């Protein structure tokens, strides 16, 4: 039986690890390569690196980070942040990323998903969705709207419709990132996660809001997610990766327990 996955997301700015609260107020919290290695050794199932470097001339630093991590960490490595073209995706793949996350650029130009799927294979293209709660409207009948540019720009696009479109265009996996919950540690946006997980037949990763082990259990059961993404709760040492996995396992969630 397939295990649920525990994924740690590392936001990287100028080659250093950063953690945001509601997408603003980022601060440096360490060396991404060191963190990645420690999580890997502690049984992490998958790693995501998100490049939040503002200036484009510093983007090559990210390739160095990916390359250094890929030499030491032998679990799937997913990288995103600022991917605008197949060329960007290919650079990251050569540096050692298995999966490529597309986000804002795909909302602006959906063909990017199909182009990446064609070039890298569907299973290597992850559509990362930043979503906020809104009032139900004709444009957003699900009550959830797509936002881009790190949560700054609302797009007037319904999140559920975009998830379906992403699957149709060839995304192999979806990250459902609830920006209302991001960094709050109050729990995932379960309703949204389940809504999307039930609407598509590709794996869904719950993201944003994890603060307690119970939140992960909720995302993987009630939220119907295939994987739970964590950041703050492991980065600051409040919980270890293996501790979270042991908890989930004890609660009857199928996890990989030997590594």
């Amino acid at each position, binding site marked *: *039986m397939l295990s649920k*996955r525990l994924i740690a997301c590392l936001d990287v700015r100028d080659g250093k690890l950063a953690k945001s609260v509601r997408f603003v107020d980022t601060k440096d919290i360490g060396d991404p390569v060191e963190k990645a290695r420690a999580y890997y050794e502690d049984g992490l199932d998958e790693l995501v690196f998100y490049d939040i470097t503002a200036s484009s001339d510093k983007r090559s630093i990210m390739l160095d980070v990916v390359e250094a991590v*890929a030499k030491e960490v032998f*679990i799937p490595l997913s990288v995103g942040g600022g991917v605008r073209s197949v060329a960007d995706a290919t650079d990251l*793949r050569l540096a*050692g990323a298995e999966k490529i996350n597309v986000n804002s650029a795909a909302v602006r130009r959906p063909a990017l998903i199909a182009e990446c799927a064609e070039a890298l294979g569907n*299973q290597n293209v992850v559509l990362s969705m930043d979503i906020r709660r809104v009032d139900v409207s004709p444009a957003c009948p699900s009550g959830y709207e797509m936002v881009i540019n790190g949560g700054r720009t609302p797009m007037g696009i319904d999140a559920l419709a975009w998830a379906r479109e992403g699957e149709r265009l060839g995304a192999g996996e979806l990250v459902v990132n609830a920006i209302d919950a991001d960094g709050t540690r109050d729990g995932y946006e379960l309703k949204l996660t389940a809504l999307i997980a039930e609407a598509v037949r*590709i794996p869904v990763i719950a993201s944003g809001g994890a603060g307690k082990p119970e939140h992960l259990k909720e995302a993987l059961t009630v939220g119907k997610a*295939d994987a739970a993404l964590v950041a703050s709760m492991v980065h600051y040492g409040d919980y270890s990766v293996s501790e979270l996995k042991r908890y989930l396992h004890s609660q009857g969630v199928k996890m990989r327990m030997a590594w």
Partner: protein
Amino acid sequence: MRLSLSGHATAALVTDPIVIIDYDAGNLRSVQRACAQVGAVAVISNDPQRILAAERIIFPGVGAAGSAMRSLRRTGMDAALRQAVADGKPLLGICLGLQISLDHSEEQDTPTLGLIPGETRRFRLDQPELKVPHMGWNAVRPVKAHPLLEGVAPEDEFYFVHAYYPVPARDANQYALTTYEEDFAAAIGQGNYFGVQFHPEKSGRFGLRLLRRFIDWDGRC
């Protein structure tokens, strides 16, 4: 500077300890990095001569069966692979590399290499909550002893990403099973050939251990 298939060298040819077959099928460098991690230098090549001269061969791959076969034929690597198997060289197929070792793939209705009798089929699952591709960590249960599976316990999990799965014609070729709604062959083998549906290069220490055992393998089982 050529070596003909019959073996007449016009110049000394390098014998690589490991050649990773390059046929535009992605993730080759991750296999190369994993080999480096367990102490082996692997080269990536699409040169049939170099494949024939290698001590051992890794046949990785993600992507589609049809384009993979076209690429292998275009470069003459299909013949080189058959020859390598006939020569008794240790050969490890990974994911698509395993699938196209069988006779036929449902993916684009593609005739494949036929190193092992059997075919590749697409997952057709009844349970709506099970996704295709089968993506993530799942247990690999050895059903028969093999040097490459030594030390693998039934609950040990490996990383999978695939929408198609191998169906060997003979149970004798089946070395490990994995359950995704139903059981499928996660590892198949015959003589000096061994194939795994999962990705040892992305399966943490268990995967690295399997690669190390392949490097030490004499091709007998």
